[in-house]
């Protein structure tokens, strides 16, 4: 009898709580209520990375990370309009160890990526790649795949719906708003050759309406400002590889040919009262670029002009770009264009900060943080983030959007702002948990 009891004890013990349990850790929501979190923004909010929006990128979006951290402080379900595969709309980039830069991922995107999934909504992540501030208020913004924004078409509740309506209809208790980057970026990425910078009046009106709408139910939230373009490798990396004056002439014949070819233009420039002529000598020379602000349309480059990441370096090497042919406008952001953008970014950020205060919202200073990354670098959990292309950890292969680790860093700046404003104790995320630039062809 006794033996049987002991044997029974052995059996029972084997089924007894086998798992160790870790002691609880502190996390609290403070004055904020994370029950229903809705994220408003553009591609950065959607989880766009490496040139496209795809499944694993969306899983590592900063709103998704925030929602995961909020869970421990009363946060609820967080739904994103997921792509069906890793290839999105077919624009994803990958590394190839034998190539100097990123290559197209190839792969066959699932055609279902372009289909509407609105019936599975509403979606907490309302980030729409390509959206500018005022786009969020625009009816018919996702009217269809061809004429509307294809990303918003995927989850717009109706063809005529606005992003803001669909966001507000969810009656969020907490929201994040990171909008405004595209108000300058679309123009900047085009080298100032297309699109335009949103005027401050329009920007201010749009953001005010967004924040007003989202706080009508007294929701709490966090607003982020936007980075300077000089904090972004798409605009700064190429000059580190190819300086503005790296047109190297080794033979007098080349020098004479170029000076001869530009002589008629130089005469016209002088005739119009300018002395900004083009001249070439043995050794290093500044490249010739298109500058549409000049009536004669071109000049030699200055140190302050920026090559874009898309610069076709093989055309410079083999097809006379920058010497016989001026480098097209779309590959260069001139210092004038940069100044125009800088003014806009500064104005937008003043508006964003003031409105965050007006509506009693937390404010994440991404402008300062990304400036810090691009100058001194930021270290977090052993990873050093800089704005160096490919090797800087923060920015993905498209040079504009972030890596999973970069988004984790941004998440922590949001959390810091939220904790400060609302006396919450949300834990930071560890960027090591998220992917860096490790994706290869």
């Amino acid at each position, binding site marked *: 009898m*006794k*033996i049987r009891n*002991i*044997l029974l004890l*052995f059996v029972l*013990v*084997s089924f*007894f709580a*086998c*798992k*160790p*349990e*870790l*002691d609880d*850790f502190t*996390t609290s929501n403070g004055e904020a209520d994370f029950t229903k979190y809705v994220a408003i923004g553009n591609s950065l909010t959607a989880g766009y990375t490496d040139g496209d929006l*795809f499944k694993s990128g969306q899983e590592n979006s900063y709103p998704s990370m925030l929602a*995961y*951290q909020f*869970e*421990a402080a009363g946060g609820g379900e967080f739904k994103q309009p997921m792509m069906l595969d*890793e*290839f999105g709309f077919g624009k*994803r980039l*990958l*590394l*190839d*160890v*034998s190539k100097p830069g990123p290559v197209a*991922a190839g*792969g066959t995107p699932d055609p279902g990526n372009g289909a509407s999934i609105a019936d599975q909504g509403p979606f907490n992540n309302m980030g729409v790649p390509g959206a500018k501030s005022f786009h969020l208020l625009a009816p018919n913004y996702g009217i269809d795949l061809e004429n509307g924004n294809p990303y918003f078409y995927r989850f717009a509740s109706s063809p005529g719906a606005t992003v803001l309506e669909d966001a507000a209809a969810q009656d969020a208790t907490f929201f994040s708003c990171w909008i405004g980057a595209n108000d300058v970026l679309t123009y900047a990425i085009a080298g100032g050759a297309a699109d335009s910078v949103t005027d401050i009046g329009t920007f201010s009106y749009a953001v005010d309406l967004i924040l007003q709408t989202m706080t009508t139910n007294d929701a709490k939230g966090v607003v982020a400002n936007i980075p300077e373009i000089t904090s972004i490798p798409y605009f700064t990396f190429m000059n580190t590889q190819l300086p503005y004056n790296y047109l190297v002439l080794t033979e007098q014949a080349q020098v004479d040919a170029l000076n001869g070819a530009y002589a008629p233009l130089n005469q016209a420039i002088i005739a119009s009262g300018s002395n900004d002529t083009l001249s070439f000598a043995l050794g290093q020379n500044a490249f010739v670029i298109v500058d549409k602000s000049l009536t004669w349309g071109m000049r030699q480059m200055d140190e302050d002009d920026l090559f874009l990441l898309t610069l076709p370096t093989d055309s410079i090497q083999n097809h006379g770009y920058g010497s016989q042919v001026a480098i097209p406008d779309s590959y260069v952001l001139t210092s004038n264009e940069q100044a125009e953008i800088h003014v806009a970014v500064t104005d937008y950020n003043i508006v964003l900060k003031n409105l965050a205060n007006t509506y009693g919202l937390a404010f994440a200073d991404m402008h300062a943080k990304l400036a810090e990354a691009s100058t001194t670098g930021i270290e977090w*959990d*052993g*990873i050093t983030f800089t704005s160096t292309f490919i090797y800087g950890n923060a920015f993905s292969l498209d040079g504009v959007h972030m890596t999973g680790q970069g988004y984790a860093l941004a998440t922590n700046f949001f959390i810091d702002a939220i904790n400060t404003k609302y006396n919450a104790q949300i*834990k*930071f*995320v*560890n960027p*090591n*948990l998220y*992917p*860096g630039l*490790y*994706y*290869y*062809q």
Partner: protein
Amino acid sequence: MNTFATINQSNYLFMRRILLLLVSIFFVASTFAGGYQVRLQGHRQTAMGLVGVSLHGDASNLFYNPAGVSLLKNKYSFMVGGSGIFNNTAFNLQNSVYQAETDNSMGTPFFFYGATQVNEKLGVGVGVYTPYGSSATWDDDWAGAHLIQNIAMKVFFIQPTVSYKINDLLSIGAGLVIATGSVELNRAVPYSSATTPGQVNMKGNSSTGYGFNAGIMLTPNEKWSIGIDYRSELTMTLEGGDADFTIPSSVTALIPAANKFDAELPLPANLDLGVAYQASEKLLLSAEINYVFWGVYDSLIFEFEQKPELLNSSNPREYSDAMIYRIGGEYILNDMITLRAGAYYDPTPTNSDYFTPETPNLDTYGLSCGITIRPTEHLSIDLSYLHLETQQSTKSYNDPDGTNFTGEYKTRTMIPGIGISYNF
């Protein structure tokens, strides 16, 4: 060694069948204490907080103290047994809500001993047992995947042994240890395709290693016995193991998908010192310290056949020697039943700065109990249960490349075991 030659043929076949069964099934040992050492080599000892060096009277002396083999009372002593290690480690990434937990399969260390008394003074025997082993299974996409996804290390020792009783006070014994083992591990590598995460699978068998196990048993009187045992260090040397990389096609220009590697793992020496006191006819008490020379585990070095300049790595471990304290007792209830209990404290030999989740070993408290049942004069059945708890501890792994992996770990281990002795 001619141990088996004189055994009754049917007994021999019976034991051999069990042994084969054990070798094929009972092989993997989960890490549960003291680095990757596994001291579950007898259920009497396991039930008594793993004291053993000063105990004598059964064939497990082959492991715990070979000097005791010459003191065995029967002409032939056989023992076979195994344990099931149910071990789980929980992990919480530092400053994060992220938690993970191992999903370890049951660890199954085993032992088999056979010993015979050639004459009054001389005893010989052979033991087969698994004194080291480690297994940890984390999710493939868990936070520490770049350090380890899963690992299974198996080591087993064969130990032919001679023991001699010099006089009533002093016995000595020594065995030659012949060791062999294998390891298989998977870890994430930072080269993923759009759809498939990068991974390396490394596995191989070690070459045969040799060592010794030598002990002294002092029996000054009926009440006291003192044991000292030293088990030498061995090195498991793995040459030409397979390293298969699951990596994107463009990366194979840089890293060959199929490679070979060499590695070494030290199995540290142990010095055990223990004392047993027969407090009454029924009650035996014992205390013991084990000094484990873990300091030899300095780093884990992988050397690859192809692209060594890129792939070779030296991974610091920097273990320290550890002292384990144990107490145990047994009470003879009647002719049929003996009860046992014990406890111990086993401080981790790992280094707080180089703590990896491949061997998530923490300061451990052990409590054990057990029972022996003797249905007949010759046969006894040993049952033991060992329960291990660790304190929740914050540990880091500071990779030489600068990355850092810090979090809180906690482990719970439950080890039921069963063994059978047949002495005649």
